[in-house]
């Protein structure tokens, strides 16, 4: 992701007011403002789309755009620096302090899990490890989710309840452009919970999950095998084998 490039971070903080919008949450006045930006882009024959970068002048005039597939660090820096020069922008301190990510609320008794799903790549020794140096493509970053389970649901997970487990394993897919969980179809799920001494539960199972890469339906599927352990204070689960079509990936779950 280009936003993890320190030069891009510096340029965004010192020359711009950065803002991001999740398309499905854009409503009201914000929708009207975004529509105006899109229309201006079409009129200027610039690239316009839903997953895009837009650079605006201080008065809100659209200056340039970049399709996400071309939004690499050099291209982002190029349009910011050119825009800053044309608009005579003075470099300064960030206007807004960076804030930590807000997580879904969970009460003390609820179980909030942190699910990390990331592609793996084959290393020189033949083992699979996390992807490094992939640039801005889909495999470069982990996906994260924080599903919350009520007290009864937490217990159901530890009792081997397949129905509640579905709500967890539906997050077991690597980064894709489609994040609509409603489109996921669990075709097969084994969820086993074996009671061990001292209140520990050993978790294991497997899932076959149909998950389209884009919002348009396709035949791509996840096949994953997982293991883990849970107790009053712990919930940890990892895939021991997982593929999305023919791409290896991994999932790690813990309280979070």
């Amino acid at each position, binding site marked *: 992701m280009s*936003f*993890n490039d*320190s030069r891009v*971070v510096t340029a*965004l*903080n010192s*020359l*711009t*007011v*950065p*803002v*991001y*919008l*999740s*398309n499905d949450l*854009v409503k009201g006045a*914000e929708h009207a*403002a*975004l529509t105006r*930006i899109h229309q201006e882009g079409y009129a200027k024959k610039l690239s316009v789309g*839903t*997953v*895009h*970068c*837009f650079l*605006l*002048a*201080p*008065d*809100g005039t659209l200056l340039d755009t970049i399709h*996400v597939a071309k939004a690499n660090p050099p291209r982002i820096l190029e349009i910011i620096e050119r825009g*800053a020069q044309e*608009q005579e*922008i003075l470099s*300064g301190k960030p*206007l*807004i*302090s*960076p804030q930590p*990510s807000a997580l879904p609320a969970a009460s003390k008794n609820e179980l909030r899990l942190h699910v*990390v799903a*990331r592609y793996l790549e084959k290393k020189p020794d033949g083992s699979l490890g*996390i992807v490094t140096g992939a640039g801005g493509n889909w495999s470069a*970053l*982990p*996906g*994260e*989710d*924080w599903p919350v389970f009520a007290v009864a649901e937490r217990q159901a997970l530890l009792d081997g309840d397949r129905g509640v487990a579905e709500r967890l394993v539906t997050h077991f897919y690597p*980064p*894709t452009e489609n*994040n609509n969980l409603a489109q996921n179809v669990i075709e097969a799920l084994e969820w086993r919970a074996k009671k061990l001494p001292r209140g520990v539960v050993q978790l294991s199972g497997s899932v076959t999950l149909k998950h389209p890469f884009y919002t348009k339906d396709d035949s791509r599927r996840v096949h994953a095998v997982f*293991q883990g*352990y849970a107790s009053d204070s712990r919930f*940890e*689960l*990892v895939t021991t084998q997982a593929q999305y079509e023919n791409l290896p990936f*991994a*999932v*790690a779950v813990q309280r979070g």
Partner: protein
Amino acid sequence: MELSPEQVTATVKGWQPTAQERTWEKIGWAASLQDALMLAKREKRLVFLFTLDGRMQRGRC
């Protein structure tokens, strides 16, 4: 192969997002497009708008 509790813990730790993968959180994002437009006009800054499917804080876009 059955993993021990310690092996599961180590694997969970090894697959967490790295500091480099969280660099984007050092960006001072505006809370809304209206806020960004207002602030840019007042402070004479450009607005950099990124629109996405999914959620930025979930690393899924």
